[in-house]
């Protein structure tokens, strides 16, 4: 026990609690039974607690106003390039399942084995650590196990997040909720109203009979950008002339962009690539795809 009867401290407690030891269930003791500077829960202590709570609440409200809750694009099961990410407090287990000995053939170790032992031990902690001693430095096994688990969880969470950031950077992906907010701001600035993904109005094609469109079909641009360039796995090219200049379009077609858009110039794509004239033809036509011209 933390405080034996021989303790030389001023106040001697019964057992490890201020509730007096007795037979069976005791009625709540009178205030005078409590030593030290105790105070009534209601209203004295609750008032102080509420004041601290109000400070927390104000900080919390400031956070909600400064950082709106994120919302990405509507769920699209066909989206193959999305990097799945659970909420931050599941990252440690998400990362754990990425290691060799906790995935594939050994996945049972990752899903049941390690978390089962860790959480099972946590759940049954009072029955595993049955000593009377309460101070953490007097029960080194329990404390050090907890400490190691803590460090491991923090490390796994950090690695997982770091890895996610790296992947985003490598593939040039902007998280959807950020991209969406930017598009929303642009859309409102341009006087088109709020941007609601999946509910945008499609801009009509300008000069759909232009031979450049046929060149694009033959070059398999439509495989990703949609048969009518309305967008599929790749982005829509309707009204692309509002966003990109002809020179930028030539550069993207010739050299590709990010991981999704391959290079079509002969320098990178080899002999099957497009000639400079064809690229020029396509870029010219695409740069004419403007929302104002489509109306």
């Amino acid at each position, binding site marked *: 026990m*933390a405080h034996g009867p021989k303790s030389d401290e001023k106040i001697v407690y019964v057992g*490890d*609690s*201020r509730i007096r030891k007795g037979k069976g*269930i005791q009625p*709540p003791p009178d*205030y005078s039974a*409590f030593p*030290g*500077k*105790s*105070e*009534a*829960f*209601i209203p004295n*202590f609750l008032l102080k*607690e509420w004041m*601290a709570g109000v400070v*927390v609440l104000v900080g*919390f*409200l400031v*956070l*909600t*106003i400064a*950082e*709106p*809750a994120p919302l*990405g*694009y*509507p*769920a*699209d099961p066909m*989206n193959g390039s999305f990097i*799945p*990410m*659970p*909420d931050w*407090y*599941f990252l440690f287990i998400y990362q754990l*399942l990425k290691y060799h000995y906790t995935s594939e053939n050994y996945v*049972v170790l990752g*899903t*049941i084995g390690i978390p089962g032992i860790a*959480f099972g031990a946590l*759940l049954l*902690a*009072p029955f595993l650590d*049955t000593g009377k001693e*309460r101070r*953490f430095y007097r*029960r080194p096994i*329990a*404390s050090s196990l*907890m400490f190691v688990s*803590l460090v491991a969880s923090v490390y796994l969470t950090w690695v997982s997040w770091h890895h996610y950031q790296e992947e985003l950077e490598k593939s040039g992906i902007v998280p*959807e909720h950020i991209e969406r907010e930017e598009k929303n701001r642009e859309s409102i600035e341009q006087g088109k109203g*709020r941007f*609601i993904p*999946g*509910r945008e109005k499609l801009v009509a094609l300008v000069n759909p009979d232009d031979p450049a469109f046929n060149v694009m079909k033959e070059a398999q641009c439509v495989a990703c950008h949609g048969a009518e360039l309305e967008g599929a796995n790749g982005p829509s090219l309707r009204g692309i002339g509002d966003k990109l200049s002809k020179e930028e379009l030539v550069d993207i077609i010739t050299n590709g962009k990010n991981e999704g858009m391959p290079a079509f110039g002969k320098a990178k794509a080899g002999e099957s690539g497009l000639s400079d004239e064809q690229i020029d033809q396509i870029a010219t036509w695409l740069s004419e795809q403007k929302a104002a011209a489509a109306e």
Partner: protein
Amino acid sequence: MFKSMYNWIDERLDVTPMWRDIADHEVPEHVNPAHHFSAFVYCFGGLTFFITVIQILSGMFLTMYYVPDIINAYYSVDYLQHQVAFGAIVRGMHHWGASLVIVMMFLHTLRVFFTGSYKAPREMNWVVGMLIFFVMLGLGFTGYLLPWDNKAYFATKVGMEIAGSVPWIGGYIKELLAGGTIVGAQTLTRFFAIHVFFLPGLLLTLLAAHFFMIRKQGISGPL
């Protein structure tokens, strides 16, 4: 006037002893930050409950606008976030509160662990507390799907694959949670029901047990 109303009720139901059991108790010196500042570590449990109350209230307001079907879920959240007065704040509170409640609960768990407060006679309260922890994680997991954006969808898909990899019963767990073989319309309504009815019901029951035990046994004494 309130006094006479209270007396009127008290004469008939004798509520004073009940009130005494619930609220009228002492706060010992060693957990009171006014006397020992380091005692602020004893506040995390109360703060967890405070945030939980915020979660319940904000969640109740969210269900006024949220529609749990795969066509409208996303657009109802979008509407709630951008069109409804104070919608962004209520949703923000629920979103950030979900993280905050995990943080507070985690700190509360660490306090109880490192002060050895789970020892006899409080073993049962620790076990109930851990069950609350798991219910909270379940609430986090099911709530994550509800906005029905890509992040929600693919995280749940991964979660289902993890559940499916459990030996023997994995397939059944997966199908029970998803309401079929794919993450789809059934999954969304099911997660909504679990998030809004099943788990909160379980949570409130466990919280009642948690508080009953702490009142019965008192706060663990000083180290």
